C-alpha cells in the first residue's frame, strides 16, 4: 500500500499563533486515517492546509507524489480530494439535488454557452449526472428530501447531504471533519455505517477528524493525535489509547512533559 497523501513537516502560523507545528503524516490508499486531539489542537487547520484554503509557511504536501503546495483550492478538488466541514457549509438556499449536482461540477464539462442555449453536451450532461446523483441519494437514504432547500432540513440530514455532496465529486480521498459532531447515538451509528460503506463499496480512502472516541476506535485503521499543533502520537487505535502522552494531553498530567514525545 503506497501513500496517497504525504504531509511533510508542515507548519502554519497566524501571526504569533502556531496552529500547526512541524506535523508529518501519510495517508495510504484505501485506509481510514483518523486525526484526534483536544479542541484547538490544529486538526481542522490540517484539513484546510490540505485543501489549500490555508497556505502553510513551511513544509510540503504531496498528492500521489506531486506537491500541491500553492495550488488553488478548486484545483485540489479536481485532483480527487473531497471534504466535508465541521460546521455545515452547504449551499443553504439550494435544494438537496442542486447541492449534490454542484458536487458534480468538476466532473461536468459542458460550456456555459451551451448551457445558456440548453443544447448539446450541457443538456445531455444534466440528465447523465442527475442519474449519478440519484445513486448517491439512494446510497445515503435521503430520497424524501430531494427537492427541499437544505436550510430547512434537520441537522442530521444536513450532515448527510454534505457527505453526499462530497461523494458526488467522485473523490479518491474524502476528508471528514467531525462527521458525527452533535449527533445522538442512533444518528452516529447511521453515519458510521455510511462511512464504512463508503470505504468498502466505493473504495474511497478516508481521512477523518473526530471527537467521538468510540467511533474513532471502532472504525479507524490508524490514528494520529495532535495537541497544540504538534503530533504527540500515531499508531493503531489500541496503541494510541495506551500512549501516556495521549492520556496526559486529554486528562492532564504533572509527570510527563509532552514536548519530549515523538
Amino acid at each position: 500500500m503506497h501513500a496517497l497523501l504525504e504531509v511533510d513537516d508542515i507548519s502554519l502560523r497566524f501571526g504569533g499563533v502556531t496552529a500547526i507545528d512541524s506535523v508529518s503524516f501519510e495517508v495510504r490508499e484505501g485506509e481510514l486515517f483518523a486525526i484526534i486531539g483536544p479542541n484547538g489542537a490544529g486538526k481542522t487547520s490540517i484539513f484546510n492546509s490540505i485543501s489549500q484554503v490555508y497556505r502553510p509557511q513551511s513544509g510540503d504536501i504531496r498528492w500521489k507524489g506531486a506537491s500541491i503546495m500553492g495550488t488553488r483550492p478548486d484545483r485540489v478538488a479536481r485532483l480527487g480530494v473531497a471534504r466535508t466541514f465541521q460546521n455545515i457549509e452547504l449551499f443553504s438556499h439550494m435544494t438537496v439535488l442542486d447541492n449534490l449536482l454542484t458536487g458534480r461540477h468538476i466532473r461536468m464539462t459542458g460550456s456555459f454557452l451551451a448551457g445558456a442555449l440548453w443544447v448539446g453536451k450541457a443538456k445531455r450532461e444534466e440528465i447523465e449526472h442527475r442519474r449519478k446523483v440519484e445513486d448517491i441519494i439512494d446510497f445515503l437514504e435521503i430520497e424524501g428530501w430531494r427537492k427541499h432547500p437544505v436550510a430547512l432540513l434537520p441537522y442530521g440530514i444536513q450532515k448527510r447531504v454534505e457527505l453526499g455532496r462530497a461523494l458526488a465529486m467522485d473523490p479518491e480521498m474524502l476528508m471528514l471533519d467531525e462527521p458525527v459532531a452533535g449527533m445522538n447515538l442512533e444518528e452516529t451509528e447511521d453515519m458510521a455505517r455510511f462511512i464504512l460503506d463508503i470505504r468498502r463499496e466505493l473504495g474511497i480512502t478516508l481521512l477523518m477528524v473526530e471527537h467521538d472516541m468510540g467511533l474513532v476506535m471502532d472504525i479507524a485503521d490508524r490514528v494520529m493525535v495532535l495537541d497544540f499543533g504538534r503530533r504527540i502520537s500515531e499508531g493503531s487505535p489500541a496503541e494510541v489509547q495506551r500512549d501516556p502522552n495521549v492520556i496526559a494531553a486529554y486528562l492532564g498530567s504533572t509527570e510527563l512533559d509532552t514536548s519530549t514525545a515523538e
Partner: protein
Amino acid sequence: MLGRPRLYTAYRQEAQLLPTWTQKVVCTLFVAVLFLLPFDLPVISHIPLVRFLGDSDWMRPMALLMVLAIAALGLNLLAGVAGQVSLGHAFFMGVGACTAVYLGGSSGEATWGHGLPIWIWLPGAGVVAALVGVAVSPVAVRLRGLYLAIVTLGLVFLGIHFGNTSWGRKIAGPPALGREFPGLDVRLWKEETPLINVEDDGHWLWFEVTDLQKRYLFLLVLTIAFTLVAKNLTRTRTGRALQAIRDRDIAAEVMGVPEFRYKVIAFAVSSFFAGVAGALFSALSQRILATDFGLFLSVEFIAILLIGGAGTTSGTLIGTFFVVMVPQFVEEFTKWLDRAEGGLTELLARFLLTEGDDFGIINTAIQTPGWTLSVFDWNIVLFGALIVVFLIVEPLGIFGIWVRVRNYWKRWPFSY
C-alpha cells in the same frame, strides 16, 4: 376522486423548463396573449384588465417594461443568483447605449458614428459592456456585500462624468440635449430601405401594423430570448456554480468551483444583458442622454429585484412589471376618478382628490401648493414604501408570496 398524480418516469421529463402540463398550457396561452395584445382582437379585448392595454397609450410603458426586464434579468444573474450586489447596472446600460450610438449613429461635425446596421450595434453594445464588466470584475473578487455595492456605485458617477468630457460629448451628444439614436430598423448594410422596417407604420406579411406595435413585437421576441437564456443559465452547471459562490464562497472553491472565473462570468453576462438593454432603452426614445443612466435607474433595478424576488427569473419579470406598471395604474386610476360622476366613485374622488386647498390627499392641480402631493410624488412615496414593506414582510418578494399561495393550495385541506 382523482387518481394518482402524474409521476415523472424519466429524468428528461423532470429537467424540462415546464415539466407539468398545466405549466405548458398556461405558459403557451400567456405568450400567445402577449403576442396578440397590441392588436384590437375581440377575444383578447374581453379579458379583464387587458382591454386598456390595447390602447396605444399602453404600448410605450410595455416597451419600456420589456427593455428594463432584459436589464433586470442581467442584474438578477449577478446580484440574485451570484450574490454580487451591484449598483452600477445603469453604468453598463450606458456603456451599451454609447457603443450602439458610436457604431450605429451617423457621423457629423460634433459626433462620432459609423452608421452600421442593428445586427452589428445591438450585439456590439452587449459585447463591449461585457468586456467592461470583465475589466471591473476583479474588484468583486476582493470586495463583497456593501463594499462592492459602494464601489460599483462609483462607476455610475464615472459614467456620468464621461458623458461630460469632450469624447463623451462626441459619443453621447451635448449634455442635457443628447443625440439622435439609430432606430430599430433591420438593414443588411447601410442601404436606404430597411430589410425589416420597425420604425414606421406599414405591414408585416399580410398584417397592417403601426410603428408601436412593430416595436412591441420586436422587443417581445428579444425579451423572450433573453428570458430563456437567463433561465437556462440559472438551471445548469454555471447557475449552480454562481449560487454556490453566493451561498458559501469558500466551500464552493473546495468543491471545485473556481471563484474568480465564475465572478468574471457573472459580471460579463450581466453586463451583456445591461448593454443590450441600454442600447434598446435609448432606441425607444430615439435619443441618447448620458444622464439617463444615473443612480436612480440603478436603484430602480435593485427595487425590481427586491419586489419581484431576487434569484428567480420569473420573480424578476414580475418585479419589472410591478415597478413599471404600478405608477401607470395609479395615474390611470386618478384620471378615472377625476372623470367620475355620481355614485360611489365620485364620493371616493371627493375624499382622495383635491385641487389644492380642500379635503383630499392627491393633488390634481398643475401646481401643488400646500402639503398635498401630486400623483407623480405619490408614486415615488409608494415605491419607497413598497421596498420597505417587502424587505420586512417578504424578503423573497412577490415570488415568495406566490410560492406560499401555491403551497397552501397544494396541501389543502391540510395545513402542512
